């Protein structure tokens, strides 16, 4: 068994010929959602399944993930916190602001926050950044996985309020939640064009790739604010 760092804090573990993604466990011995724990050379790793996480799929799809050890991350659409827990592993010296709108999933998320020192849970609507602007500071990375029809607008208003000038936006666009009927390729094109032109924050799209075969009809996008 060997662990190779493929992106800051993200490791590729080779075990019996198979390769798996993993992050270094911040809380020793704790498995968050039933994922496997593997110990290599005194270090405990948590297996990270790309089918359950858009961000993990983006790592495998060779996005140059800008999240570092000391990054501040605003995570929109945190849900129950499966992916958030891995981001929390990666930013061991940073902080994750996890925004989620559903009370039900917030219940699980709070359980996770209780276990981990670097997650700040926020029960709020990502459409209204003004409702949490008194809590969240400027961040290095905004990760967004909200599956809303106005995704790109949500990204824009949040980037405007919270993203550092040289910060990055990571976005997972779900075609089916924007238009159930239209061709996904066309939806992706429209959304990227919107990101570039439609809002008072213009984005420069650095990279975009579909997240097949891990997530169907999802486009991963990495962008930064155009100055």
């Amino acid at each position: 068994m060997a662990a190779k760092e493929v992106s800051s804090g993200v490791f590729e573990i080779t075990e019996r010929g198979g390769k798996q993604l993993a992050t270094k466990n911040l809380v020793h011995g704790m498995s968050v959602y039933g994922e496997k724990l593997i110990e290599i050379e005194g270090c405990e790793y948590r297996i990270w399944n790309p089918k359950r996480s858009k961000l993990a799929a983006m790592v495998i799809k060779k996005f140059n993930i800008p999240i570092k050890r000391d990054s501040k991350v605003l995570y929109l659409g945190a849900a129950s916190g499966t992916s958030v827990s891995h981001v929390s592993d990666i930013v061991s010296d940073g902080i994750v602001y996890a925004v989620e709108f559903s009370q039900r999933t917030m219940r699980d998320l709070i359980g996770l926050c209780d276990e981990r020192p670097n997650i700040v849970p926020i029960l709020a609507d990502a459409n209204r950044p003004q409702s949490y602007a008194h809590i969240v500071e400027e961040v290095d990375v905004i990760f967004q996985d909200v599956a809303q029809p106005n995704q790109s607008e949500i990204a824009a208003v949040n980037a405007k309020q919270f993203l550092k000038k040289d910060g990055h936006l990571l976005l997972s666009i779900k075609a089916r939640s924007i238009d159930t009927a239209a061709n996904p390729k066309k939806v992706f094109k429209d959304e990227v064009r919107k990101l570039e032109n439609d809002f008072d924050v213009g984005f420069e799209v650095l990279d975009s790739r579909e997240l097949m075969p891990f997530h169907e009809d999802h486009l991963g996008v990495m962008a930064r604010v155009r100055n």
Partner: protein
Amino acid sequence: MKIITWFGTLTLDDGGKVVEWDMFSKDTDALAERLIQPKEADMDIPPAGFDIRAAAIECGFVASDDEYDNLLRDVSIRAAKKQISSGTPDMGIIQAVEALDDIDETANTLSERLAEWYGMYFPEVGLSSEPLARFVAKYGSRSNVSPDDRLYEKATSSMGAELTGLDEELVKGFAENICTLYDSRSRLEEYLVKSMETTAPNLVNIAGALIGARLVSMAGGLEKLARFPSSTIQVIGANRALFKHLRARAPSPKHGIIFNHPQIKNSPWWQRGKIARALAAKISLAVRMDVYSGGGLNESIKTELDAKIESIKATHPKPPKRESKGGSGKGKGEYKNKNKMQNKKAGGRR
């Protein structure tokens, strides 16, 4: 400009520098309260690019980055816990509806098993589901059936095998378990009726308690249901048919779960779509009355609905004439010419 942050209020000069500040007390619980309700008169949110962490340290609220992180984390967790613990009655209704569905599913599966199993010993019993479970739980072996039971004759002359000893104990116990499920089902229904009558009297008056509860559950809450347009209410529960309609050239669904309303179910097919539309319109009015005008039953909606349904029935007493072939029972004569590709059947309830 005065801005509010989670740790205090700050006054900024035009250059964005903090010139005055008023820190809150450093009590986690009090800070959590403020976090949820930050609205204070003439306060702005921090301008984009303002470093609230640096401000907290500069104003002496916290001494270090670490302290900032820890305190903010504690306060946010406390605040989030406060926010999710405020349950409303419609949340109870949603859980009850889902529990009802789970029980139905389970009870059906178990009843089928019981029918197969007990059939070995008394194939002539002719009962199923709840009556069968009650029968088996009461008697066990058919040799115990009392002479005044109407199945006595059949029980004595049955060609089934003898049910004795351990087998009888097992089958009987199994049936008793199913009976408990049915008991709990009727308790849930009672609860739903009562709870719906107090939280949404007008909805109950128009749609009935159980359909009403189901609508609330599918919408995700009473208030959410009140915000739905009536066209949505008309097709809630017909998701598959609706998306097929939007995606392909399937006909639009006429009714979702409101189909179970006796006024629709018991009407002939060509009136159903029209009645569904009228019913949905009145349901959405009724829910809004329940949510926004605070209690009290208003009979006028019901009267109007009844009048409307009467007039639909009076103007469309006969089925519309069908066009040559295809006629797949869509009923909406006025749509036929417009959309000749109607021969695909929609997936859900139409």
